[in-house]
């Protein structure tokens, strides 16, 4: 019994941390309509600033706390006003969601550059000795955390419900346009909500730093669990945020206590998927979820920016000749492998382009399919001695089935929930890859993957592997180009543009979405398998959810819905780090910054910009003269 109570207390403690992060999520969502994935980074920023002020500058706790909060809020407001705020009014919600993912990566990179990759721990506020109540031991810092959570919830409630500013904030949430018409400075309110969320995050980070070790990638952990909490509770609901946080904390602690530490994350994700499927808007839903499951984008010119067919054939052949002759060029050591990896990752990006670029379905789950493809191929070929080619095919089958189930289960999801459900899927696969140690080798990775052999051909040198991958890429691009320039591609784009209008023209929207998801998953799976054979090693890190964000960054940077554009993005984010090895620390920072900048300033991608620069196409906005220009005089009864 006392064990149970002890676990329960641990769960409530953990839960109140999740609840506080969830509060930040909910507040920003209520006011801006954006799920801010960088919320978890606010905690880490706050904690790191606290460390600096408390341990290095030796300030007393209250002063250091105030300083850390100030620094975090300052940084967030500064960055937010240049990136997030303009994006909210200019970009579709799904792009803004990605932009916040970019901010998360950017913040992680920033912490990595400034504080390094080691974990930090701080002394508890009131000594190491735990408080003992009726035989139950509670760490003293835990009481600080619980207290902060209660006070924070109360203050936030008072602020929103009882003050003028709170009313203005709520008005922005209800109807931004109407609020603006009533004289409310909506952008200022949005910035204010972001500032409050940063404050919440910083205080949370400071409070938990003494009992949880903090390092640069803790940010994704807090974002993930805060988000799971908020999705369980219902995005936008403060009661839901707290309830969701507590439920999640207790459930994961119980699972860790009675089942296994390793599967507590898996359980949390299963819980989340169940809630998403059964109650798509969470336990305490607020209002109707906006219908943004596809990327409604009235200015979606991306897919129209094209080279004409003659130019694209010429350029394609030139690119192919360059790629085919690469092994004969004097390359720096390791470059051959990097080129193969570039092409392999490009296959996964191709899949993402089909799903996200053409069909407009935001997916954060591509890394999950890479993981399935990689691990299935590795396990079948190494552990069970299947021939590599059959293990790749079996992996494809498995991924296809998983994708179909995922697509059917998430069919009804609206808004950010679709993107978030795919994220949950990727995290679930990730947690299985870490947790199923006997099968996958766990966190330390899977070793001993054989050399890829197809019949008598062994791809045992970097050059041979490179040519194999190049041949696969050429074949896949040709196949996809054939489909996407025809009816299949138009069906995907129609669904992206307007689902109900597509259905009214006889398109089976559900069918099309499932097809896109499966096709995308197959490409992701193939990339994962090749990736495993390329390295002859696979670890969860290599196919973690960070990889999903990276794939999106590559796609957007290169150019969505362009098929080959992704290659430019992949090359940039894969080859540049190889060339500038000494700057490896800055990689994460650069990736985050590039993702944010690409969404903000280069929506048509490098590819689109190249096309525009080449000037080989008519600018789209220069239209022929309107049909008739006479004044309209309608006759009405």
């Amino acid at each position: 019994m006392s064990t149970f109570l002890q676990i329960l207390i641990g769960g409530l403690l953990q839960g109140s941390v999740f609840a506080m992060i969830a509060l930040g999520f909910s507040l920003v969502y209520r006011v801006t309509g954006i799920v801010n994935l960088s919320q978890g980074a606010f905690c880490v920023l706050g904690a790191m600033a606290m460390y600096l002020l408390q341990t290095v500058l030796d300030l007393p706790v209250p002063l250091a706390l105030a300083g850390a909060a100030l620094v975090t809020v300052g940084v967030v407001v500064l960055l937010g006003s240049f990136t997030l705020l303009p994006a909210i009014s200019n970009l579709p919600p799904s792009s803004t969601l990605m932009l916040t993912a970019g901010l998360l990566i950017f913040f992680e990179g920033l912490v990595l550059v400034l504080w390094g990759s080691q974990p930090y721990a701080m002394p508890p506020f009131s000594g190491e000795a735990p408080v003992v109540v009726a035989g139950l031991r509670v760490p003293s810092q835990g009481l600080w955390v619980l207290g902060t959570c209660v006070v924070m919830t109360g203050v936030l409630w008072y602020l929103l419900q009882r003050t003028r500013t709170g009313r203005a904030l709520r008005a922005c949430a209800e109807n931004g346009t109407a609020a603006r018409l009533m004289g409310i400075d909506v952008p200022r309110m949005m910035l204010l909500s972001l500032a409050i969320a940063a404050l919440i995050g910083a205080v949370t980070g400071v409070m938990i730093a003494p009992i949880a070790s903090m390092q640069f990638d803790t940010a994704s952990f807090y974002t993930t669990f805060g988000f799971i909490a908020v999705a369980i509770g219902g995005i936008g609901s403060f009661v839901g945020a707290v309830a969701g946080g507590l439920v999640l904390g207790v459930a994961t602690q119980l699972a860790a206590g009675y089942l296994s530490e390793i599967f507590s994350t898996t359980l949390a994700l299963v819980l989340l998927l169940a809630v998403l499927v059964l109650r798509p808007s969470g336990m305490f839903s607020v209002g109707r979820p906006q219908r943004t499951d596809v990327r409604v984008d009235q200015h979606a010119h991306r897919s129209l920016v094209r080279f004409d067919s003659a130019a694209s054939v010429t350029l394609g052949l030139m690119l192919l000749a360059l790629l085919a002759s690469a092994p004969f060029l004097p390359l720096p050591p390791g470059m051959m492998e990097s080129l193969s990896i570039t092409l392999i990752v490009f296959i996964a990006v191709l899949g993402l382009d089909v799903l996200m670029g053409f069909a407009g379905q935001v997916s954060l789950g591509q890394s999950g399919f890479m993981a399935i493809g990689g691990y299935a191929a590795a396990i079948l070929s190494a552990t069970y001695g299947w021939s590599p080619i059959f293990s790749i095919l079996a992996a494809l089958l498995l991924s296809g089935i998983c994708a179909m189930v995922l697509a059917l289960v998430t069919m009804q999801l609206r808004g950010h929930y679709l993107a978030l459900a795919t994220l949950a899927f990727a995290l679930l696969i990730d947690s299985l890859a870490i947790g199923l140690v006997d099968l996958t080798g766990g966190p330390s990775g899977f070793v001993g993957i054989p050399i890829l052999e197809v019949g008598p051909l062994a791809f045992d040198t970097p050059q041979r592997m490179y040519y194999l991958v190049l041949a696969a890429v050429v074949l896949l691009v040709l196949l996809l180009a054939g489909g996407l320039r025809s009816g299949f591609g138009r069906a995907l784009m129609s669904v992206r543009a307007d689902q109900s209008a597509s259905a009214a023209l006889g398109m089976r929207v559900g069918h099309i979405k499932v097809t896109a998801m499966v096709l995308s998953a197959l490409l992701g799976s193939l990339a994962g398998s090749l990736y495993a054979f390329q390295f002859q090693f696979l670890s969860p890190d290599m196919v973690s959810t960070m990889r999903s964000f990276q794939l999106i960054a590559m796609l957007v940077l290169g150019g969505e819905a362009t098929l080959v554009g992704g290659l430019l993005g992949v090359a940039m984010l894969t080859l540049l780090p190889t060339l500038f090895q000494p700057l490896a620390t800055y990689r994460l920072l650069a990736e985050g910054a590039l993702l944010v900048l690409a969404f903000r300033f280069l929506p048509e991608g490098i590819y689109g910009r190249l096309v525009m620069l080449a000037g080989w196409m008519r600018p789209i906005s220069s239209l022929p003269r309107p049909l008739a220009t006479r004044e309209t005089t309608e006759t009405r009864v």
Partner: protein
Amino acid sequence: MTRTALEAINLSKHFGGVLALNDASFTVPEGSLCALIGPNGAGKSTIFNLITNFYPASSGEARLFGETLTGCPAARIAARGLVRTFQTARVFPGMTALQNVLAGARMHQHSSGLAQMLWLRGARREEQALSRRAEGLLDLVGLSAFRDAAATDLPMGAQKMLEVTRALMARPRVLLLDEPAAGLNDTETVELAALLRAVRGNGVTIMVVEHNMALVMNIADQIVVLDAGCVVADGTPVEIRGNPRVIEAYVGRDEEVASA
């Protein structure tokens, strides 16, 4: 004797306590052009949305060539030959005008996605044939200059026309047009009238919600008048023109006019 193409039988729709449509019944014979008119809020678009199952009817049913449409999913309705346009032109952003029109042919593209991916001869031939037809239609409605322009960059009138063209590409047996002339200027309206006549001439049944009375009186075979959710008149343009209840619906009752 002509068949009945479209039939509404006691269609009603409540939105909460509001009765948007009350027991509406009418029939549209095959190959005719029926106009649905009435003041704002009379329930015209509601009828379209009920027929095409955009939302379920509270009671009553709609039939297409004698078979019920109740519970039939939107894509299936289109496959059965009933295609609609929307009150606000819903062209597909991110696609050119030609791609928009071609999207209408989705039901008639029989080659599989796999065949298209493999660049099979049959799939390419079919694609070419559809492209020719789409270009022909664009030419017919005078939009061929916009062929490769982004659909959303077209002027409003051209977008409405493009939506009609896209619907035609689907080869409908019955075409529902929601205010096709809204936003068109006089010339374009005349062109629209000619187009609708030509389409009807090919045996397509057309039902159109329209405010432009000159256009309606000019092209309709039959007019159904709605007021406050009820069908108040149903007849030929000549019959409707003189119908006191129609005048009442639009102008108001005598005493109201007097008191105002």
